């Protein structure tokens, strides 16, 4: 059985360990294993939004030329962690769109470890966090490019909106590259609402809550831009924005 993690474990650095303890060490062993055969495409949409701590551990094995897409919206009222380990074969692709949104004092986090140890695999991860109250949103993304991972193209993009003092966000990109012909892009930004944009919108007649909703919708929509099923994208967006409405 896996031992309980501590904050010294890099992947658990910002986790709510008390909540993990209530789940018990047994929960750490529960991995959902998904394997994609050569050329297969798999799309999963996951809404994580309960009142109790939740831990979702997903292991993806993506064979030659296959494509795994995962879209996650984390809105829970207690500690929520979605963890994804992906192993990409030659020419395989991994797409992640993630959103953490919410207030209270909960920690909501998305943690990924993506292994490119075969040539020409690609991955793209876009995560957006919107938090208020004393909430925390984390994105920890490890990318391991092995010696065989030539012509890897991996991208990671994280942005967080902290709506008020007291809330926080942590970004931890971790790139380990052993091949020499590789593209790995990563970006992280944590900021506040664009007050000038809000004022501009108000000056055209939009009430503050409407303007805020439009801006936040645009902000998190980036994470779902690669989800081509528009209905599903709309459902996830609305679920995320629903949390915002509850706040008001």
């Amino acid at each position, binding site marked *: 059985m896996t031992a309980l993690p501590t904050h010294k474990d890099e992947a658990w650095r910002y986790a709510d360990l008390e909540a993990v303890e209530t789940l018990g060490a047994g929960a750490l062993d529960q991995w959902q294993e998904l394997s994609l055969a050569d050329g297969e495409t798999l799309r999963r949409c996951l809404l994580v939004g309960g009142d109790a701590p939740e831990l979702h551990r997903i292991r993806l094995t993506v064979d030659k030329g296959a494509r795994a897409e995962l879209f996650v919206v984390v809105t829970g009222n207690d500690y929520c962690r979605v963890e994804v380990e992906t192993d990409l074969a030659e020419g395989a692709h991994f797409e992640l769109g993630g959103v953490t949104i919410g207030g209270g004092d909960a920690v909501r986090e998305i943690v990924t470890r993506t292994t490119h140890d075969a040539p020409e695999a690609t991955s793209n991860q876009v995560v957006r966090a919107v938090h208020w109250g004393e909430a925390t949103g984390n994105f920890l993304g490890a990318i391991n490019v092995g010696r065989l991972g030539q012509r890897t193209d991996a991208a990671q993009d994280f942005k967080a909106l902290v709506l008020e003092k007291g809330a926080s966000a942590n970004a931890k990109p971790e790139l380990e590259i052993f091949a020499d012909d590789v593209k790995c892009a990563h970006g992280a930004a944590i900021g506040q609402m*664009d*007050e*000038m*944009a809000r*004022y*501009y*919108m*108000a*000056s*055209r*007649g*939009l*009430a*503050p809550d*409407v*303007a805020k909703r*439009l*801006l936040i*919708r*645009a*902000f998190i*929509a*980036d994470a779902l831009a690669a989800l081509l099923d528009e209905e599903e994208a709309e459902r996830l967006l609305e679920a995320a924005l629903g949390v915002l409405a509850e706040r008001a």
Partner: protein
Amino acid sequence: MLKIENLHAEIDGKEILKGLSLEVNAGEVHAIMGPNGAGKSTLAYVLGGRPGYEVTQGSATFMGQDLFDMEPHERAAAGFFLGFQYPVEIPGVSNVQFLREALNSQRKARGEEPLTGGEFLKLAKEKAGLLKLDMEMLKRPVNVGFSGGEKKRNEMVQMGILDPSFAVLDETDSGLDIDALKVVGEGINAIMRAPEKGVLLITHYQRLLDYVQPDKVHILAAGRIVKTGGPELARQLEDEGYDEVMAA
């Protein structure tokens, strides 16, 4: 229509407007000219209710209502429009979506029925045509990737769609080439030249006033109106400069 009396306003504790008084009646166009740092843009933002611009003394009455008693979005719904010197970019929110929400928010505040998507597009197309702005640009995110001139024309398209009763236009002519200036000037006349409407044009140049003939021209210096005259005052300024005209 707009009556400003003894207006004092400050930013970060620094007084910029120092007892400004001005009255624009329905059917009139007034121009405000003045040297850099005189307080022209501050006046525009104070009237538009931008956060951080604090009124310390004096009043502004707009169509019988206390302007400073209204939130920025309420001023818009009451028929007040501010054309920005530097229009704001809003990534991820399309012009069409933004303006439709804005117009319908205003209509709702006035107890009117919202426009349907089709009705709105027809209106937007008409106003974009008036300002010679490609309708395709209205489908793009607000001002993102627009040139300086396109942003200014977009401001006027917005004014056309929202159809305010009073507009304060802050250096709408700056950044426009000669042809665009003519289009914008004619646009202002088409949208705002009416017996029940009023305009306050803030400008550095006489040229816009060739297209939009002002009824009165004011010189703003050091936070107050120091001289008022007819259209000839603008021409005199162009010829002689501020120092000479103000000394006279």
